[in-house]
């Protein structure tokens, strides 16, 4: 699509960015069984989203991320807490009065309506005149490259095309907020890669405040401005993707977002900008990194090291911190991933970029492990 045409389209789709605030949201379910128990799907959830921000709720299945989304949409009622959009409380409003956009995981396209009528649905419901509907639908069709599909039915479209229709159906009513419930999970891997970038581009171009839910950490990292990591209904960490990856706040985040090697250690002393740690009986002095939590002497911690920061060396290397044996080699073309069984019985993961002069380390070879001790990142031990 050429830039002039894009500018015209952008100027016609005028969506005002709104903020979202969630205060002390909790949602409970009664679990039926021999004994009725109250279960929290979400507990004391607090979040502020800036206008125009694209925030991703990331967490494993059943962590409560979709529950929060559905509470915002009005498809679930909250047990406690309030939700505000642009400073106005929306608790108690039925879904059809909230003017929000929701793209369902399965798209939920109306099977008995053509693509045109699916797109036009929200406008028809509101009694918008026919000519205006036609105009608005055409804008969306051009924006999402759906030309030629107007008279087809959803079952005649591919997964990617259906997803675009679902998005278009939502955007046409100029919703205050866009909610995306695992929008890419129904697509095969190739399409998912292609559409990740497209989706973010469209959303940022429109400037619409978006909440995106996914369990796929790679999807979250590539799409989001900010990630909210959720576990068992509780927020574990809120930050930009790079910071979540570099400075995970907990053991859970470290392992859920990417892989992490966690070395148990104990804090011996904290000085000005430096820290003395006991690691495998050795005393190690290191600089405190800027994202460090507040620790005290005697605290039990983990040193978190990403696989790409772990170095495999000779077993006899004097700087080797721990010995082990190469258990499995996962050759992935541009990366070589090693699984190492240490002398202490633990498992470590190392990733090495495959360069021209790279050679594979043999399976079952005895090796040493080291990493940069000058700047350690510590996580509280659970």
């Amino acid at each position: 699509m050429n830039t002039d045409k894009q500018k015209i389209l952008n100027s016609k789709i005028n969506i005002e960015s709104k903020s979202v605030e969630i205060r002390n949201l909790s949602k409970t379910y009664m679990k039926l069984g021999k004994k009725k128990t109250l279960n929290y799907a979400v507990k004391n959830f607090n979040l502020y989203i800036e206008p125009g921000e694209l925030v991703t709720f990331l967490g494993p299945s059943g962590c409560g991320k979709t529950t929060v989304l559905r509470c915002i949409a009005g498809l679930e009622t909250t047990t406690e807490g309030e939700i505000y959009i642009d400073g106005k409380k929306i608790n108690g409003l039925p879904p059809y009065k909230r003017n929000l956009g929701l793209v369902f995981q399965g798209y939920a396209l109306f099977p008995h309506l053509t693509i045109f009528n699916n797109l036009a649905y929200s406008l028809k419901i509101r009694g918008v005149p026919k000519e205006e509907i036609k105009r608005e639908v055409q804008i969306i069709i051009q924006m999402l490259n759906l030309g030629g599909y107007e008279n087809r039915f959803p079952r005649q479209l591919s997964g990617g095309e259906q997803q675009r229709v679902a998005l278009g159906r939502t955007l046409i009513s100029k919703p205050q907020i866009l909610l995306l419930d695992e929008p890419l999970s129904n697509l095969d891997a190739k399409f998912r890669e292609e559409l990740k970038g497209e989706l973010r581009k469209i959303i940022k171009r429109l400037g619409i405040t978006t909440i995106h839910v996914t369990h796929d950490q790679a999807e979250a990292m590539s799409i989001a401005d900010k990630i909210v990591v959720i576990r068992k209904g509780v927020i574990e960490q809120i930050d930009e993707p790079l910071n979540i990856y570099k400075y995970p706040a907990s053991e859970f985040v470290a392992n859920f977002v990417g892989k992490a090697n966690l070395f148990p250690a104990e804090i011996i002393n904290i000085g000005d900008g430096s820290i003395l740690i006991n690691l495998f009986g050795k005393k190690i002095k290191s600089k405190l990194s800027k994202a460090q939590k507040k620790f005290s002497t005697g605290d039990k911690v983990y040193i978190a090291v990403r696989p790409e920061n772990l170095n495999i060396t000779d077993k006899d290397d004097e700087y080797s911190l721990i010995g082990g044996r190469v258990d499995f080699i996962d050759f992935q073309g541009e990366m070589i991933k090693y699984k190492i069984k240490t002398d202490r019985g633990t498992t470590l993961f190392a990733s090495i970029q495959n360069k021209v002069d790279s050679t594979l380390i043999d399976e079952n070879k005895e090796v040493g492990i080291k990493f940069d001790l000058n700047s350690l990142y510590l996580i509280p031990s659970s």
Partner: protein
Amino acid sequence: MKNVNEINTSKFKRVQNGIESLFIPVGISLMLIWIAIFIIYPFINMFSSSIFVDGEYSLKYFSYQRSAYYFKIFKNTLMLGLSTASLSTILAFLLAFGITQVKIKGKRFFHFIYLLPTITPPFLFSLSVIILFGRRGIITYHLLRLSTNIYGYPGLVLAQVMTFFPFAYLLLRSLLVNLNPSLDEAAFVLGANQIKKFKTITLPLMTHGIVGAFVLIFMFSIADIGNPIILGGDYSVWASEIYASVVGQYNLSLGAAMALTLIIPVTALFFFQKYLENKNNFAMITGKPSQSKLIIEIPKVSKFFSIFFILFSIFIVLLYLMILSGSITKLIGINYGLTLKHFKTIFSGDSRGIKTIMDTLILGGAATILGTLFSIILGYILVRKENLPGRNILDFFLTMPLALPGVAIGIAYVIGFNKEPFAWAGSALIIIAILTIRLIPYDLRVIVKGIKQIDVSILDASYILGGNDYKTFTKIVAPLIRESIIASIIYNFTRAITTISAVIFVVSVNWDLVSAAILNKVEEGKVGQASAYGVVITLVAIVLNLALINYGRKKEIEA
């Protein structure tokens, strides 16, 4: 070390393997013989009887049907069918909608009540209608002091609607339950309130289902024989006229010709209804369903449906209570003194009551077992042997009886098995056969569905590991579909012991069925004994189905 092929070479094992390898060929051969004798032969005879009269080729009995008399019967049948279908569909839709979409208490209870008519004789409510609304009816005469004539169109419509609405209800309820809830949620989020969502999404997606339900009930109505015989009075319909021509005039040729005329619309409607059933699938749940269904919680709506459900359930229970009342009062409508004489009469040593009940259970049981066996073998063949020549012919002929009105099958059997070489009229074999051919299509559907749910690689693994068809079926398939088979057996046994249309012509002095006995007692004016039979067979059916529900619940808990 010996390989597997060397290990199993004992003579006994070779013989055993040889016998087992005949599992499919023998099964197919038996079914072909069955089809030839019990499906093709009687219908050929019926057809020839309708066009060969007194040894001559003649179409006179088809020409008769063009007369004003038969045109009136045709109009009556059409009128009854359209009325019953319309009212049943509207009623069923309200019930299905309320049960699935509205917040009310006691849904399980109401659902059970609405399904009761499916497990009781399909003409039982005619008795109840007479007791409640007849000339000496409890409501019309004793309460309202009216002397009404319930026989004919109004009584028939009422009895048929109450008998057949559950089938439309089940169909529509299933559709509503399986509608993708994300579609509702999408509509809400896009700005539609409950009413707009209902008009623009729910109703359009239900269109095929509603038409399908209408067609189904219409089919049941025009093929129904029990209710028109009891309640028809002067209002003759096609099925009751067939009965009159055979039992009253003993004109089998006329009966055959009329049955053939009835087959055409019923069969056409059957296939049309199947076509609509397939069309319903596109809005069903696929993939990961949405987390919850949105139920209507508007207090006024909930109240309306609650009251409606309660009143309607009371009416259904009342209809059953009338059967019970008829069985324990001296002469219902005239003398309300309590008595057990009707039960004593049917259970006394001199009467045929016990024999009739035992005959029903034995014949119904035999038909159920035979039907299940055939369905299992054919089901296995249909799913696993897609390239077997002739499998589609087997499927067609064994499923076809479902598309035929029961009365047509009954006449075909009377004509076909009244002469050599198969002069089996009145025997247990014929009754079992006629019950079986009506049960197989239902059984087959359940079993095919059950087998299809088994991961095909499990069966492939059995073959690769050396299992032949017989071993694969008995050791792998049958245990995995055991629950489907048990559910199917109980449901079909219930149907076998309550059906009337097909068996009404084939019962005899030697072998009788409760359903036919009830009809006879009503014709003899012995409403008390008819009601007593009705109570017995209803109780048997309810106990069986409660056992099935209980078995199903136990399996859920164990899982």
